[in-house]
Structure formats: structure tokens, C-alpha cells
């Protein structure tokens, strides 16, 4: 058994190691060391907890068994999961953190003595507030993440579910939780505590169902943030520095990512939260889709010819590429182009994919060196000097209407200036609009050649024609 002062010092050390873990991510070179710091920090925290509890009875064996059971399951998932499924995985993991926070809060409520928080039904006021907040935020994280997981997995429809009075119901639920926590502090009644937990589960689900599939990058980042605040809430309850530091780090990290995602879609955070975007009730869509405009379409041979004669090519990948699993074929195509001394780079929009940085991971998986992959701001000026833009599986993020039509729902969203290229190759199954439900003007431009096919199939055909 070690003294509380010593264990607190060790918790501080693991907190600092967690900061270094995030700091390492500032460049791919240092990131692996950073991850190692994170693992060491976690080890320290767990070992110190065992030593400070000092209960080496039979239960310790059970704890280790449960730890290894969970660990084995986690390791299995980590090795099996395809990179295209990262968004679901992260949503699923968030739900686990949320539920773990709820369980720890419940355990602390049932047996406050174990945590030094007072006696059952006579818990210290501050601790009671902290544990109810931790439980409530944890429950919201859990049910919200479960809904996000179901939507990303396609088990639940990605279209927003909206009904009348939704916002009032959410407001009512939110206020009830606050009022119930107030009365819980007055009376210490277990029933009130359980009601708070149940209502929080409910509101978590209610908050996510009206948000459409296209907004998932924001939702995931937001739930990331929530899971951090839940951990911090529990950290205050347990008076544990490692948890408080980590909670604050994760909370602010998720909040920053949500902000970046919202900004990349030119939408306010509240606009996303209140939901309803990405439905099919947009009037603009019906208007524009009625006109039949001429489209130039081509085949793999034409595309290969255009690229062979280009000096520079910019690839614009989007979620469609991930769905078609075309990243490996794409890499093969790029290798062939490079052998012909054609300069190739990749342009990634911040909201390409279903979570922040998703495209980068998929390209990295296909062995694309990260220094050929550029962010929107770094590459947008290069389109004007390039010969061919190869758009594969992206749509809304290339739509020039975002710069020209103030009536468009995506007006103001930063987009890739693909149309400035000498020619644009657009791989797409059909002319259907993207998630935002807006027709893409790019389809009808003179310098655009549409390649109607599955992204993977088309890329493979181009590869054949490049020889």
C-alpha cells in the first residue's frame, strides 16, 4: 500500500505522459513515440491504483481476469477492423467510455465509503454533484454514440429523424435532469439518481437522431469531447489528477475537432446540433435537377490518354473512394503515372470521409507517402497550374456553387477549386447529387469529363490503359 501523496504524484506523471502522447501527433515522425508515452502513462495509472488500494485478496485475480478479457476483445477488434470502418469503431469506443463512466459513478453512489466520499445516503455534497454530472454526461455519451454507431454502420438510416416538438422535448429533458440533480442533492434519494441516469440515456439518443449522415464528422468529434467531459466529471468525484487532466485534454480536443469540422462545412455548431440537414426537403434540389444539361462522358481510355499527356495531376479522393475500396487501385494508377514523370499530388478536404482525417488514413493504408497528401489550404492554388484533376468519390467538396450561389445550402463552404484545372475527370456512378442534396455544376463544365462507373472498376481500367 502506497501513500496517497505518492500515488497522486504518479497520477500526475501519467497525466503528463498523456499530454506528450497528444503532442507527439504534431508530426507522423514523432507520433509513434507519442503513442508509447500514452501506453506507459496508462500502465503507471493502473499499477499505482492496484498498489494504492492494496487489496491483494482473491478479488485481485478476478480484476486481472476481467482486465485481460476486455483487453483481448479490444486487441482482437483493433487488428481485425478495416480502415474504412474507423468512424464506426471510434463511435463504438466512445460509447464504451461513456458507459464505463456511468458504471463507475453508480458504484461510487452505491458505495461512497470505498472512494472516501462519505456514507451511503449521506454523500458529501460536492461529490454528489460531481458524480451525478459524470453519470449524466457519461450516459449521454453512451446512447449518443450508440446511435452514431448504428447510423455509420448503416443499421439505422442516415437520414435525420425529426418530429414536431423535438427541441422542446429535449429542452424539457435537459431541464428535468438539472432539477432532479438539485433535488438529489437535497434528499440523497437513490430513485432520483437512477432517474437522472435514465433520462440522460434518453436525451443522448434524442440529440443524435435528428442529425443527418453528412454531419457525422461533427457528431463523432462532439461525442469525443463529451467522453472527455464525462471522464473529467468522474475525475473530480474520485479526486484523481490523471482523470481530470485526461478529461480536460480529451474534452478540448473533441471540441476543437468539432469546430474545425463545422468551419469546413461553413455551418454553425448549433445548426448541426439542431439537426435536419441532409434530408430531401431542399427546394433548390428539385429546381435544378429538372433541367437537362449536356454532360460530356468518357471511358477509361479517354481518361488514361488525358493523364498520360499531362504534366501534373491532382487526385481528389472522397468517401466514395473508401466505399468502393478503390485506394489500392488508385495507388497503382499513381505509380504508373509517376513512372512517366508526371507530378501527382493528393488534395484532401477536411470533411472528406466520415470523420476528421479519415481520407489520410485510407491513403496511408494504401502506402501513399504522407508528403504527397495536401490539405485544402496548401493545395488550392495549385489547381490553376495543373493539367488534370481526378475526382474520385468526392462531390460536394468540389462544387463551385459554394462560391457563387448565395441561395445554395452549401454557400460559403470552403471547396477545392477543381474547376480551375485544364481538365477534370470525375469518377461517379451517376449524376445524382451528394449528401447536401445539391446538384454539382462541375458536371456540366466544358472541361469536365464524367467517367460513369464504380470507382474501383474505373481506376483498374485506367491502369490497364496506361501501359
Amino acid at each position, binding site marked *: 500500500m502506497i501513500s496517497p501523496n505518492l500515488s497522486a504524484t504518479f*497520477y500526475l506523471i501519467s*497525466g503528463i505522459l498523456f*499530454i506528450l502522447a*497528444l503532442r507527439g*501527433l*504534431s508530426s507522423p515522425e514523432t507520433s*509513434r513515440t507519442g*503513442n508509447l508515452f*500514452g*501506453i506507459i502513462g*496508462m500502465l503507471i495509472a*493502473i499499477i499505482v491504483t492496484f498498489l494504492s488500494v492494496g*487489496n491483494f*485478496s482473491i*478479488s485481485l485475480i478476478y480484476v486481472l481476469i476481467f*482486465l485481460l*478479457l*476486455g*483487453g483481448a*476483445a*479490444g486487441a482482437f477488434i*483493433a*487488428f481485425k477492423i478495416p*480502415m474504412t470502418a*474507423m468512424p464506426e469503431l*471510434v463511435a463504438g*469506443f466512445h460509447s464504451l*467510455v461513456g458507459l*464505463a*463512466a456511468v*458504471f*463507475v459513478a*453508480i*458504484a*461510487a453512489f452505491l*458505495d461512497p*465509503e*470505498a*472512494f472516501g466520499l462519505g456514507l451511503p445516503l449521506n454523500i458529501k455534497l460536492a461529490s454528489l454533484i460531481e458524480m451525478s454530472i459524470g453519470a449524466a454526461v457519461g450516459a449521454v455519451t453512451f446512447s449518443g454514440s450508440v446511435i452514431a454507431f448504428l447510423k455509420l454502420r448503416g443499421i439505422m438510416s442516415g437520414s435525420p429523424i425529426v418530429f414536431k416538438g423535438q427541441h422542446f422535448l429535449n429542452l424539457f429533458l435537459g431541464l428535468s435532469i438539472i432539477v432532479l440533480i438539485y433535488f438529489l442533492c437535497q434528499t440523497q434519494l437513490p430513485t432520483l439518481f437512477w432517474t437522472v441516469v435514465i433520462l440522460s440515456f434518453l436525451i443522448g439518443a434524442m440529440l443524435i437522431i435528428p442529425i443527418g449522415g453528412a454531419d457525422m464528422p461533427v457528431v463523432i468529434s462532439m461525442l469525443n469531447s463529451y467522453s472527455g467531459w*464525462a*471522464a473529467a466529471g468522474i475525475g*473530480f468525484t*474520485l479526486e*484523481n489528477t490523471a482523470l481530470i487532466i*485526461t*478529461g*480536460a*485534454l*480529451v474534452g478540448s*480536443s*473533441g471540441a476543437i*475537432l468539432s469546430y474545425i469540422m463545422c468551419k469546413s462545412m461553413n455551418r454553425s455548431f448549433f445548426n448541426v446540433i439542431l439537426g435536419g440537414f441532409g434530408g430531401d426537403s431542399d427546394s433548390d434540389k428539385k429546381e435544378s435537377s429538372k433541367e437537362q444539361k449536356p454532360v460530356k462522358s468518357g471511358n477509361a481510355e479517354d481518361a488514361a490518354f488525358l493523364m498520360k499527356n499531362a504534366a501534373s495531376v491532382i487526385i481528389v479522393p472522397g468517401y466514395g473512394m473508401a466505399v468502393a475500396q478503390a485506394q489500392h487501385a488508385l495507388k497503382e494508377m499513381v505509380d504508373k503515372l509517376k513512372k512517366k514523370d508526371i507530378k501527382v499530388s493528393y488534395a484532401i478536404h*477536411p470533411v472528406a470521409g466520415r*470523420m*476528421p*482525417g479519415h481520407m489520410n*488514413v485510407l491513403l496511408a493504408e494504401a502506402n501513399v*507517402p*504522407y508528403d504527397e497528401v495536401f*490539405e485544402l489550404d496548401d493545395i488550392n492554388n495549385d489547381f490553376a497550374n495543373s493539367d488534370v484533376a481526378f475526382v474520385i468519390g468526392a462531390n460536394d467538396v468540389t462544387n463551385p456553387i459554394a462560391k457563387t450561389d448565395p441561395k445554395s445550402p452549401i454557400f460559403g463552404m470552403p471547396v477545392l477549386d477543381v474547376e480551375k484545372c485544364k481538365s477534370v475527370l470525375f469518377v461517379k456512378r451517376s449524376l445524382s447529387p451528394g449528401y447536401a442534396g445539391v446538384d454539382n455544376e462541375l458536371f456540366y463544365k466544358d472541361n469536365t469529363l464524367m467517367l460513369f462507373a464504380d470507382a474501383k472498376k474505373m481506376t483498374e481500367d485506367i491502369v490497364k490503359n496506361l501501359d
Partner: protein
Amino acid sequence: MEIDPFIFRLSIFILSIFVGYYVVWSVTPSLHTPLMSVTNAISSVIIVGAIIAALASSDIGKIETSNIFGFLAIVLAAINIFGGFLVTQRMLQMYKKKKKNKK
């Protein structure tokens, strides 16, 4: 009058938010997915609370409801810790500079 320890914890919390703010802005956008999976892994340090809850006992050998919640939380957090760190490692491994490309 003595300062409530809560204020100290609050200070740590607020300062950590600032640290998090600056550290996360310096994360390169291409590593945002690993950032999410690693933050997820480290927030599972909540396992500390789960272990305390699981090992606490007023009577030796008797399992209370709170212990059960502790054990359940251990499993959930352990899935996250192993899964989170390993999947992050797997992703970061892909960002290694490849030498074989210089053919």
C-alpha cells in the same frame, strides 16, 4: 481560511484545458483520426475508478452490487485501452516513410 482542495483540482482542470487547446491545434490534420482513437484510449484511464470500485469491500468475500458495476466498467475500459492504443499504433505504422517507393 484554508483553501478547499476542490479549487486545486479545478485549477488543474482549467489549466489542462488550455494545455489541450494548444497541443491539439498543433496536431497535423492528417493525423486527426489517430488523434481521436488515442484520446479515446487515454480517456479510458477511468479504469482507475473501476478498479477501486471492484476491489472495495466492506465484508471480505462478499460481492456487493457496487463491485459488480466496478467489474463491468473494468471490462469496458479494458476493451478501449487495448483497442484504442493498438488501433492507433496500427494506423501510425502506416504513416512510416516508405523507402521501397523510390524505384
